């Protein structure tokens, strides 16, 4: 291994690094900081800012022998280039000598800084970056004490340019490092901002309508080395040094991005601790240093005026505030009376600890633990999922990633980034989807199937399937068969619960048959629509087909962290018929309005807990802000109910609940909070005092989490259920089949409280091919009425040439309860 390293010295310190390492990164490994502005370890170097200039000498090579020319004393003769060189664009070579601490280098740094400062407004006192600003810090370290230029000659430029509604640009502060542009081009592949003009007029502009149209836009504000880019959320909101940081896990999809909540006391809110912003926290195995804009901006529900903070009991038809004891006693009494007819309906944002207590309660009551979800397969991912030592960030040649029925960019944005990067590193990406998605452009093979035909599409990959496969299926199958490692990722594009169950089963079956299980970099992954659906499955919950019927027959219904009545009138009706209704939530919802007893829970950033990500990484989140009013953590509420029923249940410490989980679930056997809090050094080193290097992303000091084993990796016998009956795709003469799709910015019950994102939210829009619209005499922009289970819904018509004929797409969570493909009656609005 060592002979593959390149040896050099930097300021007389010997360093050995892999070939192609850049001098700037080699120096970092030797503990030497070379200041940079334009360089960023996650972006291609461009050598723009000239801040990293160093002296570089290389040993002279004898042309004939290829050996170093040596002095009398045997030391290689060095040749220093007459000009300073940029450490950020220069790769190391054997025997190189780098000098970063000479006067010449110090002069160059001082001069470059002086140049930058002469065209920078120096409005640090009102700049959001002040306090965590690379320019400020590097000026203190390397800059001139004084400027030789006239302040009056500074250019005055626009200071509040909204690139979009989320990101503002201050043109005076921009130092033209191009990091933002390169991030959008290289990492996000959303080239929606760019440089315009040249020379000193060089400026950042947005090229998209709406402006800065990218779901990753917030990341540019982290890596911008000055206060030129700020988020609409945080600008002028606080000074960085006033902020405390609480480690957390993003709650909005299955990726489980590591984040930080920055909080401070807010005078305007009576001195309460409030969240000021969400920042990424480095976890190279999960989200590296990026997060999507939903994760960054969707936390505002926590401060919503609709938060409920006091238990309530229905009295004479109205919900009246009550004390905890009274409310809990009433629940316990009903549970004692109705025992086994308890149905617990849990939402996927609950933590493992909450779900464990809920499941224990339900199970010991003999009730039914139901997961509120339209996706299935959590039992399968627990057995044949991707085991420890799997890292999407390292997948490359020899790996096949097969993504089926998934619009990954919308369903799990960070996975989209990472799978795109894996494909760029050489992994073979096979995309099977009924319509074009943004993943297609990186795919080695793209296979289109008709909505409803996902099982057939997948069956081509079965080992026994031979015969004449048409292209592009044949080459895709060949790639699949030749792969050393295979990961299959399925989503929820056009699927309902039954379809999801069948698809997950088929995917698992294929992996088992082709021996792609139990080994790292092999296995099944689900792009769950909530943060902890995998955890919910692991804790014993699963969704059911006949939810309405089950609810309507329940003696006691215990709805936690979800709003079925708000989502679906059918479920609302079912709840009307069900017996005693206990609702536990943080906000006022339609379901809460129907409750007999309401129990106010804490939002996840108000307490601790753990989530299991879609990759089955168990990660821990910490309390960030104090809970409001009379709320309790979900696990504690459930524990108190259990206690009233005479059972022991942990109500104080989520850590202790995890130990109980570990004792019952073999995948969690070695898990405890200390383990989850462990960190090790991550490359590239970021988030430390050298903000100029990685940006303002946070260093991970609170835990990288741990990857759970699978039944296959533990070499346990698998327990795969029989294949569910294949679902029938609903097609009916005269009716239009509408299929559900997932949108990142839906109108989910948490997201809806973040005003900032309102412009981007999905609408009840029915999108179809122009030919299909023609058949129904519909045109773009028209309003139509769609009958779903006899309820009429108004939808707007949109057209898309890329879609297959004869179907229409409808986003989920936009107020229309379409959770599976359905043939509907459609007519223009009169």
């Amino acid at each position, binding site marked *: 291994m060592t002979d593959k390293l390149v040896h050099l010295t930097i300021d007389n310190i010997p360093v050995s690094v892999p070939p192609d390492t850049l001098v700037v990164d080699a120096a970092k490994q030797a503990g030497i900081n070379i200041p940079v502005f334009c360089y960023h370890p996650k972006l291609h170097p461009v050598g723009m800012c000239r801040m990293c200039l160093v002296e570089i000498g290389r040993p002279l090579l004898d042309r004939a022998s290829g050996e170093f020319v040596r002095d009398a004393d045997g030391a290689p003769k060095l040749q220093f280039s007459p000009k300073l060189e940029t450490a950020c664009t220069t790769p190391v070579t054997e025997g190189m000598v780098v000098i970063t601490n000479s006067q010449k280098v110090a002069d160059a740094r001082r001069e470059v800084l002086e140049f*930058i400062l*002469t065209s920078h407004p120096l409005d640090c006192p009102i700049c959001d970056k002040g306090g965590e600003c690379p320019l400020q810090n590097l000026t203190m370290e390397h800059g001139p004490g004084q400027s030789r230029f006239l302040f009056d000659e500074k250019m005055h430029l626009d200071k509040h340019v909204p690139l979009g509604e989320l990101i503002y640009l201050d043109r005076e502060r921009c130092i033209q490092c191009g990091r933002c542009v390169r991030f959008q081009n290289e990492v996000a592949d959303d080239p929606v901002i760019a440089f315009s003009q*040249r020379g000193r007029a060089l400026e950042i502009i947005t090229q998209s309508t709406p402006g800065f149209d990218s779901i990753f836009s917030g990341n540019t504000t982290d890596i911008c080395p000055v206060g030129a880019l700020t988020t609409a959320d945080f600008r002028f909101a606080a000074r960085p040094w006033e902020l405390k940081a609480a480690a957390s896990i993003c709650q909005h999809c299955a990726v489980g991005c590591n984040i930080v909540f920055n909080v401070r006391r807010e005078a305007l809110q009576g001195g309460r601790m409030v969240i000021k912003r969400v920042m990424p926290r480095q976890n190279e195995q999960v989200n590296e240093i990026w997060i999507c804009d939903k994760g960054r901006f969707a936390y505002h529900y926590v401060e919503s005026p609709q938060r409920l903070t006091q238990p309530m009991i229905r009295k004479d038809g109205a919900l009246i505030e009550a004390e905890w004891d009274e409310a809990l006693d009433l629940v316990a009494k009903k549970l004692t009376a109705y025992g086994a007819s308890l149905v617990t309906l849990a939402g996927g944002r609950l933590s493992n600890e909450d779900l464990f207590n809920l499941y224990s309660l339900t199970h010991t009551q003999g009730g039914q633990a139901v997961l509120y979800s339209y996706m299935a397969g959590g039992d399968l991912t627990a057995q044949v999922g991707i085991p420890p030592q799997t890292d999407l960030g390292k997948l490359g040649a020899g790996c096949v990633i097969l993504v089926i029925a998934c619009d990954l960019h919308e369903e799990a944005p960070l996975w989209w980034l990472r799978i795109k990067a894996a494909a760029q590193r050489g992994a073979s990406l096979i995309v099977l989807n009924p319509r074009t998605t943004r993943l297609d452009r990186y795919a080695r093979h793209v296979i289109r199937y008709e909505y409803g035909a996902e099982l057939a599409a997948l069956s081509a990959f079965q080992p026994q399937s031979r015969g004449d496969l048409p292209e592009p299926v044949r080459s895709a199958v060949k790639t699949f068969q030749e792969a050393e490692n295979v990961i299959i990722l399925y989503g929820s594009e056009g699927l309902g619960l039954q379809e999801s169950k069948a698809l997950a089963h088929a995917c698992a079956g294929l992996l088992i048959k082709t021996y792609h299980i139990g080994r790292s970099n092999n296995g099944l992954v689900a792009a769950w629509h909530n943060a902890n659906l995998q955890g919910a499955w692991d804790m014993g919950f699963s969704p059911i087909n006949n939810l309405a019927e089950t609810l309507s027959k329940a003696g006691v219904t215990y709805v936690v962290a979800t709003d079925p009545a708000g989502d679906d009138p059918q479920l609302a009706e079912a709840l009307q018929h069900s017996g005693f209704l206990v609702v536990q939530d943080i906000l006022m919802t339609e379901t809460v309005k129907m409750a007999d007893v309401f129990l106010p829970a804490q939002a996840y950033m108000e307490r601790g807990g753990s989530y299991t990500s879609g990759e089955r990484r168990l990660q821990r989140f910490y309390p960030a802000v104090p809970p409001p009013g009379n709320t309790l953590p979900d696990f504690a509420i459930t524990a108190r109910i259990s206690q009233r029923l005479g059972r022991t249940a942990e109500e104080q410490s989520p850590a202790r609940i995890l130990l109980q989980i570990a004792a019952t679930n073999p995948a969690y056997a070695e898990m405890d909070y200390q383990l989850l809090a462990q960190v090790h050094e991550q490359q590239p080193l970021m988030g430390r005092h050298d903000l100029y290097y990685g940006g303002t992303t946070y260093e991970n000091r609170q835990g990288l989490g741990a990857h759970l084993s699978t039944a296959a990796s533990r070499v346990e016998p698998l327990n795969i259920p029989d294949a569910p009956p294949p679902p029938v795709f609903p097609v009916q003469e005269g009716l239009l089949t509408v299929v559900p799709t997932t949108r990142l910015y839906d109108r989910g019950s948490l997201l809806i409280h973040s005003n900032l994102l309102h412009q981007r939210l999905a609408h009840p829009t029915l999108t179809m091919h122009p030919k299909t619209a023609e058949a129904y005499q519909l045109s773009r922009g028209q309003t139509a009425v769609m009958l779903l289970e006899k309820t009429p819904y108004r939808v707007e018509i949109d057209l898309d040439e890329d879609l297959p004929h004869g179907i229409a797409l409808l986003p989920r969570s936009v107020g229309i309860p379409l959770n599976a493909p359905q043939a509907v009656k459609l007519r223009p609005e009169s």
Partner: protein
Amino acid sequence: MITITVGTATCGVSAGADKVLETLSSLVQEKGQGKVVLAETGCMGMCYKEVLVEVSNGDGKFLYGDVTPDIAKRIFEEHVLGGRPIEELVILHNYQEGPEEGYLKRQRRIALRNCGFVDPMSIDDYLARDGYKAIEKVLKTMSQDELIEEILSSGLRGRGGAGFPTGMKWRFARQQPGSEKYVICNADEGDPGAFMDRSILEGDPHSVLEGMMIAGYAIGARNGVIYCRAEYPKAIVRLRQAISDATAAGWLDHTFPGTDFSFHIKIKEGAGAFVCGEETALIASIEGRRGTPRPRPPYPAVRGLWGKPTIINNVETFANVPWIVLNGHEAFASVGTPKSKGTKVFAVTGKINRGGLVEVPMGISINEIIYDICGGIKDNKKFKAVQMGGPSGGCIPASMGDTKIDYEEITQTGAIMGSGGMVVMDESTCMVEMARFFLEFTQNESCGKCTSCRIGTLRMLEILERIVEGKGEAGDIDVLLELGNQIKSTAQCGLGQTAANPVLTTLKYFREEYEAHIHNKKCPAHSCALLVNYVIDPEKCTGCTVCAKNCPVNAISGERKKTHFIDQAVCIKCGKCITVCNFDAIYKD
């Protein structure tokens, strides 16, 4: 048969060659059918004498200068039809005798060997002058390595500015693995005042195509791109024609019998940014990206167009290549100095009697070019300095006029050989203003990518602007020197690294002019408007009152028949008075 040839390169056209051609063409139609052929040709070099018309008959070749449509009529009637050359208008007879013989005598034409002699739109003309013989020779008799060796031994260095040995560049590209390689011809020519490349493209496009083909064979490329600035419409038209003729004649896009070599050339029009002449920016521009330079290495020879090994050479460099192949490296190397071989084309402009395109053997001195070839300074003024290499170059003072045209010797002075721009300045040129002008140009053209060039040049420019406005301060010179050297050592590409050269060289040779501006608020050349005082000489003033009547701000007072006086506090330095005074009584101070 009598041939009339009109020079219709851009220099000719801007002097009115189109009108002359029109006149002649209708005359030929009317009266010369069957006897007279009318032809066009490229730049003959004597831009100062445009429009140029040559009459060639049994008595030899007669070149007329300063031709207008009226003179053209006379030439047609008296000389073409009448057989009597108009002696007083002939400037050159058989390229040897006549008032302008000095212009050509000291020149040596290799790159311009066909310019002015062939109709650029005619491949037959080119073929008649050994056109495409060189590529034929190469394909029939030379291996790739032999060819590269030949170019190396000739000592040819890149004519685009930096003077990198062409053979060495080709060898690097040849040594790179891979079968997809490119040849790019850099015809971006962005230096203000330079038109060497334009003249070659307009006057002899085939020689460039042939040079590119030879380069393609040498490195193993099958494709060439000519990156030509869109502001050269005529060059583009002629290149297009040449490419289509060469294709039709089987030179391009055609596998040569007995080889597997075929070559394709396309034209890419540049958007006219100076920085796009820098090779990596040029490549980015061809690829459809923003034309900004990237760090080198990797050099284009290793990773160039579309990531493939690519050589980029200048137009003039390519034009030399077929000649070297046909005449041998010794012939080329016999011209010039030990390290600079062959010839160099210069576009001489400014305060010079015979401004135009000259091709001189390396080793000739600047004085020889200015006095012997170009006839000295206009209006008998004093030669002050010459700016070489355009905005990236520097000025060489008259006192160093013996400096030889040689890459190293010119670099010694602080200027550079550059691509061939030569701006001649006389005593009325302010060197501070000249430096300001060039810096303004580079500052405008900075791509803005790197800090030192984007901001540093602006800071320097601001200081220079203050100085020429009389607002210079003590210490400005030191800051200019420091900034100049900083930018030189920290900018990424040649544009930034050389941007300060005009300032640094004028500071080196004309520091006292800066000091006069800063400390005395005077412009020694009397050129900076705001630093000039208009003063009335009491000896000469007759008190005619004309000046006072014409002063737009009533700064001049004085009674009729008495000496007048200019109030400097009121004067706006418009210079009107000096032009209206009939007694030369007003002077600049």
